[in-house]
């Protein structure tokens, strides 16, 4: 009886039955991808940009409040919104696009175990003086790295970041190795971001709270924010 009522709710004018509720504007990209996958849409079709609150970002900028002239590393690739926001706060911006540079340095994820290639990647992307970075916005870039590369990148971040500085990273909270979407991140304000899907990539490994604590073991503290979109926002204090 109940199922009949549900069917009638989704019944279209032509009488065919569809179980595809239209995604609401506030729905997450993960949810939209699930809907798209269920409806058999092309995998290359990208979801529309989504604006959402980010407790991690809010915490990140709360920690940097009332300080100007900091060196902030933004790993989302250069975009006008992030540059404007960080410059208006009075900071110096270091721009990198780690996800895009993964493709330049490695043929595929299996090559991310090659020590020579890993060193080349670090030289190309994180070649900063020791303890020169006051804050790092890594976004979702770390989750596309396999364990050897990821450990080397985190080790290099530890070297280049100042003590008591913060980094922000996002990890998709999946329990199995799957392809996950990579996003471009634009800062709308100190607690709001706009996510636009770039492509879908294989995740480097499965991340949970324990593995992330182990990954950032050298750092002083790790703080998690689990969002509705099965996304872990992680604030790490150097």
């Amino acid at each position, binding site marked *: 009886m109940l199922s009949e009522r549900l069917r009638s709710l989704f019944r279209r004018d032509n009488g065919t039955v569809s179980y595809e509720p239209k995604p609401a504007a506030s729905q997450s990209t993960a949810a939209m991808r699930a809907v798209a996958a269920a409806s058999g849409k092309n995998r290359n079709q990208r979801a529309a940009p989504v604006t959402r609150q980010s407790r991690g970002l809010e915490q990140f900028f709360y920690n940097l409040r009332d300080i100007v002239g900091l*060196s902030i590393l933004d790993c989302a*690739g*250069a*975009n*006008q919104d992030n*540059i404007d926001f960080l*410059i208006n706060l009075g900071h*110096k*911006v*270091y*721009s*990198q*696009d780690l996800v*895009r540079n993964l493709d330049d340095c490695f043929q595929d994820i299996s090559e991310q175990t090659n020590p020579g290639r890993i060193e080349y990647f670090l030289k190309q*992307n994180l070649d900063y003086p020791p303890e020169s970075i006051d804050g790092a916005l890594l976004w979702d870039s770390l989750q596309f790295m396999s364990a050897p590369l990821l450990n080397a990148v985190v080790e290099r971040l530890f070297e280049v970041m100042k003590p008591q500085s913060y980094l922000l990273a996002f990890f998709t909270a999946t329990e199995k190795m799957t392809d996950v979407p990579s996003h471009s991140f634009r800062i709308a304000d100190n607690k709001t971001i706009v996510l636009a899907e770039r492509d879908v990539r294989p995740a480097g490994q499965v991340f949970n709270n324990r593995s992330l604590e182990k990954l950032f073991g050298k750092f002083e503290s790790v703080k998690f924010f689990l969002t509705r979109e099965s996304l872990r926002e992680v604030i790490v204090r150097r």
Partner: protein
Amino acid sequence: MSMWNKKEDTPAPRPASVPPAPPPAPEIKKEPTPVSSTPFRAPDAEARNAATIGKSVRIVGQIFAKEDLYVDGDVEGTIESQENKITIGPNGRVQASIRARDVIILGQVQGNVETSDKVDIRKDAKLVGDITTARISIEDGALFKGSIDIKKPEPKVSTPTPVATPPRPVETTSHTPANTGAAATTTR
């Protein structure tokens, strides 16, 4: 009366015969203008009224310009045009440090960029290097790796006030307002 209302009753004498028309000029066969199969494209707005380094030109060394400069070729070294605009065209491949009032990048640049006013990185452009500027614009699709240091231009002093200053050691450069403005763009 007739003086004011003078009418010429008799028409002016016409020549009895119309002079023969001049012999027709020998027909000139116009050769068809050679037309390229590709549609004509007006030069880019950035290239107008600017000295241009064409896309088949390669320069190794230092370039100093006192006018706007459009670089669509290969340049290795330094490019400087302190009071003017430098545009790196879509075919431009520059491995050089660039100093200018404004810099617009449509091609590829590897080197530091320093401007007193604005850096404009257009779609599909690639810049690897550090930027020191007062304003910056980056279009989506551009690739930028490096740092951005915003230096607001120092307000120019309109009338220098005579202030009794203690004698200073002799310097090679004079402290005119123009030089003060240039000092804002010196390297970090």
